Every structure is written in structure tokens, then in C-alpha cells.
């Protein structure tokens, strides 16, 4: 095989796969997705009664007021245009100081020690979930702020607690946005 022919073959095969794998495959698949799964394909958006987009069921939002359940601290403040994490090692002083400060703030606000998920940042900075325990330690504060019976809030929390997949995979979790929207939906 001559060098020229070798290069020619290589180039033609590269171009063929460029079209097949780089263009045809994702474009055809996008077409299929927009038809078959338009909701998921466009980001599982959550809309309010006015059909305005108020978030995504998969992406966490920042909540600060005592009336809402708070998600986990985020090193990017839940700014979804650029995901990011703390990148702090377990032996990093900054991590320990941050946890200390967050734990103290939480304790001041809730009168109890936080669970670990509430003082550690997630990988994505967009974690939509907290642990059921992390929700439980906030029930007293939220019900007080909303003048609800703690039992009522507790029921709501367990209603919005997702279990493991097939009872085996993953961890039990509470979607903070969904829970807070449900809270807002309760007639007072």
C-alpha cells in the first residue's frame, strides 16, 4: 500500500465516522428525543401555575429563609450555568473551618447539630437532595416558621422521601425543591 493511498484511506474513514458518529448520530437522536421524551430532553423543567419555568426537578436551588427546607451548602451557590465543587481534601484546614462555621450557624438557627449532608458541599454544587435525617433536623424550624404542626411537616417530608432503587441501589433522599413547593402549596 502506498503512503499516499494509506493517507487517503485514513482521511476518508475519519471523515466518514465524523459524519456518522459526530453529526448523524446525535442529530437523529435529538430528533427522536424531542418527539419521544420532550420533557426529559429539555431538562425536566418545573413550571408554576402560570407556566413559568421555576426550576428543574433534577437541579437543586438555594433556599435561605427559615420557612423553607435548606439544601446542602454549595460552593457555586447553585448557579447552574457552571457546576463546581469545593475540591477540598479531608485534611484541608479550609474544609474543617467551613464545616465548623456552617455547623455553628445551623445550630444557632435550629437549636440542634446538623447532619453531615447539611455541612458538606456536594460534587455538583447542584445537589437537589438532602438526606431524610437532614430534613428531620429542619422540621422543627420550618414548622415553627410556617405555624404548622411538626407532625404535618414530618408527614410531608416522608411523602417526599424517595427510597433506594429496587430497595438496594443509591440512598434515601428528599428533593428539597419539590418539598418546598409542596410546603408552599399547603393552605394555611
Amino acid at each position, binding site marked *: 500500500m502506498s503512503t499516499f493511498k494509506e*493517507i487517503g484511506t485514513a482521511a476518508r474513514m475519519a471523515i*466518514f465516522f465524523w459524519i456518522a458518529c459526530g453529526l448523524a448520530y446525535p442529530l437523529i437522536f435529538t430528533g427522536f428525543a424531542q418527539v419521544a*421524551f420532550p420533557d426529559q430532553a429539555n431538562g425536566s423543567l418545573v413550571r408554576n401555575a402560570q407556566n413559568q419555568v421555576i426550576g428543574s426537578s433534577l437541579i437543586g436551588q438555594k433556599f435561605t429563609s427559615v420557612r423553607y427546607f435548606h439544601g446542602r451548602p454549595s460552593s457555586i451557590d447553585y448557579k447552574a450555568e457552571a457546576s463546581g465543587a469545593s475540591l477540598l481534601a479531608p485534611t484541608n484546614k479550609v474544609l474543617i473551618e467551613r464545616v465548623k462555621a456552617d455547623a455553628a450557624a445551623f445550630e444557632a438557627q435550629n437549636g440542634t447539630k446538623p447532619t453531615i449532608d447539611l455541612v458538606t458541599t456536594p460534587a455538583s454544587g447542584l445537589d437537589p437532595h438532602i438526606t431524610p435525617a437532614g430534613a428531620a433536623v429542619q422540621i422543627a424550624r420550618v414548622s415553627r416558621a410556617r405555624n404548622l404542626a411538626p407532625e404535618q411537616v414530618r408527614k410531608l417530608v416522608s411523602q417526599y422521601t424517595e427510597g433506594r432503587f429496587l430497595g438496594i441501589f443509591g440512598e434515601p433522599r428528599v428533593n428539597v425543591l419539590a418539598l418546598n413547593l409542596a410546603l408552599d402549596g399547603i393552605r394555611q
Partner: protein
Amino acid sequence: MSEGLLQIGATLVLMVAIVPFFGAYMARVFQGQSTWLDAVFVPLEGLVFRLGGVEPERQMDWWEYARAVLVSNIAMFVPVFAVLLFQGSLPLNPNNIPGMSWDLALHTAISFLTNTNQQHYSGETGASHFAQMVCFQYLMFTSAATGLSVGIAFIRGVLGRPLGNFYVDLTRSISRVLMPVAGVFAVVLLSQGVPQSLSGIAEAGLVEPYQTTTDGKTETVTTQKLLTGPFASMESIKELGENGGGSYGINSAHPYENPNPLTNLLEILLLLAVPTSLIYTFGVMAGNTKQGWVLFGMIFLLFAGLTGTAAVSEYFGNPAVNALLGSANANFEGQEVRFGWAQSALYATATTSTMTGAVNAMHDSLTPLAGGVALFNMCLQVIWGGQGTGIAYILVFLIIAVFLTGLMVGRTPEIFGRKIEQREVALASIIFLVHPIIILIPTALAVGIPGIAANSNPLYHGLSQVLYEYASAAANNGSGFEGLGDNTPWWNLSASVVLLAGRYLPIVALLALAGGLQRKVPVPETPGTLRTDTVLFGTVTAGTIVILGALTFFPAFALGPIAEYFANLAGKTF
């Protein structure tokens, strides 16, 4: 702890269950036997070969095969590099992402070309939809197929058969293995919430606006910018092809890439599928499935042991944090609630053992031992290993184990009936030499030259970060301890060199080794022949892998993860 270990165990059971089916299927594909996709693809392939000028029946010798790999990879590099440079002015760029700097574009193109997908840019802010498609998804298929082809050619040579035709192998890798499987699983991922769109950012009005202070200026944030793209089609090939390059900077930890435990399970199984099954494929092609299972079993035990170590380490968490909270917790920093410590530890070992490099938790924030396991996996690069290259490296370790210990049965060593002589040892040595050279020397330079290592973490973990960067590049893994501030000419260029050396030097050496073995006169098997398909020899090979791997990297590990482990135990912070 039991719930965590249960889900790890259940995942491993599923992983093993896939192996004989997928492995046998790949053996059929690469031995040219009929498969059920023939009806669609045989005419299509014929057309492609005609247009491409490929003579499918023509067997290549090792050097032809290697040339085809190199030349075609260069041909694939060119358009990708160009698109990355000029993506700002190219179509399908709704978020107006500018072109990359030349060094970043170079590193990125090489990184995807070498099946590494080390990312010094952040997916959602650094690449247009067009680049995600015609650069990344394209190379995710072709780089995986290149690795797969080389692995298969190596197996053929070791077994004394002609190496095959690179373009036929490349095409069949994509048409029979990667595209069908990736396509099916893309649908599943899509159905679970992984986006697939070409539109720009969707602005969501926040339920509760909040105030934030940056640089002394306080502003009120009222919206969240939700960014989607053609990502479901990318996600499945990212895992199946052991690519690992995330559509989003934060990879499979991002809820859009990996929305729930089901997608997490599928992603883990996908990224393990090819390298685990290829060991079985080798057994089928060798006509000795026992040999396949022995190799599989040996790697499986190493993998299970390392995964267990990482998981237990994660379970016991960070003593410093636990002391603050006054409770016993698993490590949680840099991890997602839906996955927890068990799935994070499992994903971390699976992705680093397979040279995938996708992450669902921040490896930088793993406990020292779990991070050390991830690093160790990439230093060994045979505990499953890369797409195609994994089985090849396993066989090279087998060759070295046979060479070292085979003498002890009183014959000059032979593997699969072929004598291991100077040429084989020299070529295997190249493969072994390349790895420590391109990991340790750049690491020493980066930490030795002042001002290069601008890490997010000091001291032991800082060293680990640098070591991890180069180990990841050398092993063509692509995961990162991140936190290096690595989009600078030094990191882009030094990592590019490591990526290229880590990919193509071993590939050429592997093919030369296979070509040489193939030409040898086979030695018939007798009772005096050392059998390699026994549990005993599996153990010997595992010992060789661990001892040689550990010996090479132990000092660096002692100063990095091990020193950090003891510091962490003692509650020290830096």
C-alpha cells in the same frame, strides 16, 4: 455499612453476569462470525469500505496496523482541533461560547483522541453544542474503537493468528459493539432525565431569590440558568467507550448527567462492560474459556479488594469532620445525596480501574485511602484497564509473570506456545517503562519547579493532586483530583505530551509484540509446559501485578495518600 456493601455487591454480581454474554458476542464480532446485526450493517460496511478504499480481506502486518492506527488518528485529530479553536464562529452555539486557546484546544483534542477525556475546560462553559457533537461524541466512538481494535489485534497476535485489518476492526467496533449498545442505553438515560436538546440556556425564576456578595457587591439572584444540550447521546458512549469526558464540568455528579440511582447503576455497568467482557472474549478466542475466567477472577479479586478498601475508608469518613459534628458519619464532602458513600466509592474505583475517568463524586475530597485506591488503579492500569488496551496490558503482565517465574519449571518461558525471548521482553519493558517515566518525571518537575503547582490543597494532598493529574493522563483515564488550576500552558502542554506517550508508545509496542509472537513457531504443549490457566498461575500473575506496580509507585504513594492517611487519622489539617 451493610446497605452500602449490599449495593456494591449487587452491582458486581450484575457486572459478572454480563461478561459471558457480551464477551462471547464480541468474540463473534471480531472473529467475523455472523451476528444478528449483519442484515443492516453488512451492506453498509461494504459501501463504506468501497468508498474508503479499504480492502477488508487484506491482513495487515503489525507495522501496517500500527501505521493505520497512527495515520487515521492524525486524520481524526485535525477537524477536532480546528473546531475547538473556532467553535465561537461555528453553528450550534446558542450560549455563545468562545473558541479555545491553542494550548487548551490542543490538550483537549489530544485528550479525547487518546480516549482519555482529561478536561482542562468545563463542559458547559467551554464547549459549544457543535463541539460536544463533532469533537467529543465523534472521538468518543473512534478512540474507543481504536483501543478496542488494537486490543483485538493484540489478542490475535498472541494467539498466533494474523492481526487483522485495522479499518475493518475499527468499523466493526463501532457498528457492532459501540453504536448499538450506546444507542439503546442513551434512550434509557434520556428517559430518566438526561437532556438531549440543541437549545440554549433556560432561565428559571427562583422560588426564593437570594442575596449574594461577591467582591463587596451585594446582588440579588432571581433566576437559575438551566443549561442543556445533546447530552444523552454522549452520556452512554462516554461510559461504554471508557471515555469519561463529561458534558458538564462536574461530570456524572451533575444531576443532568446522572439523575438517579438507576442511571448511576447503568453508567457503572456500562463503563465496566467492555474491559471486563474482553477478558472473556480473549478466553473464547483462545479456545480456552478457563483461561479467560482465571484472568477475570484474578482481576476481579483485586478489583473487589480495592473497591472494598475504598468503600470502608469512605464509610469511616473524615475524623476531623466527625469530631466537629460529634457523630460517626461517612465521608460526604464532594458527594451527592442520591449516591452516598457506597455508590461514590464504587464509582470512583470503577471509573479509575477502567480508564473511564467519569466521576460521580469529587475525587479530590475522597478520604485519603479511597483517593489512593483511585490513584493506584491508574498506576497499575490493568485492573480491568482501558478499552481494548486493558486486556492487552493484562496479557503483557501475564507474559512478564511467565518470564519471571516460568523459568522455575525448568524451561525457557513460553506463553500460549510461543517462546518469550529478548524481543518480547524488550517490548514488554517499553510498555512498563513508559508508565513510571511519564508519571513520575512530570510530577517531580511540576512540584520541583516553583510556581507551577497552584493547588487547592497543600502538602501531601497537593502532591497527590499533581501525581493524579499525570497518572490520569498517562493511563488515558481522564479523571482528576482537579483543583490544580490546570488550564495553563504548562499543564496543557505537559499533559498533552504525557497523553500521547501514554497512548501511542504502548500501542505500537503492543502491536510489535503481537506481530513478533504471531510469527513464532508454536511449541507444542506437554506436561512440562507451564499452564497459565490455573488458579495458581492466576495468583502468581496477580502477585506480579501488585508487587511490580506497588514497587514502582510506593515512594510517591508514601509521600502522598499514605502520609495524608496518617495525618487524617491523627486529626491533622494543613
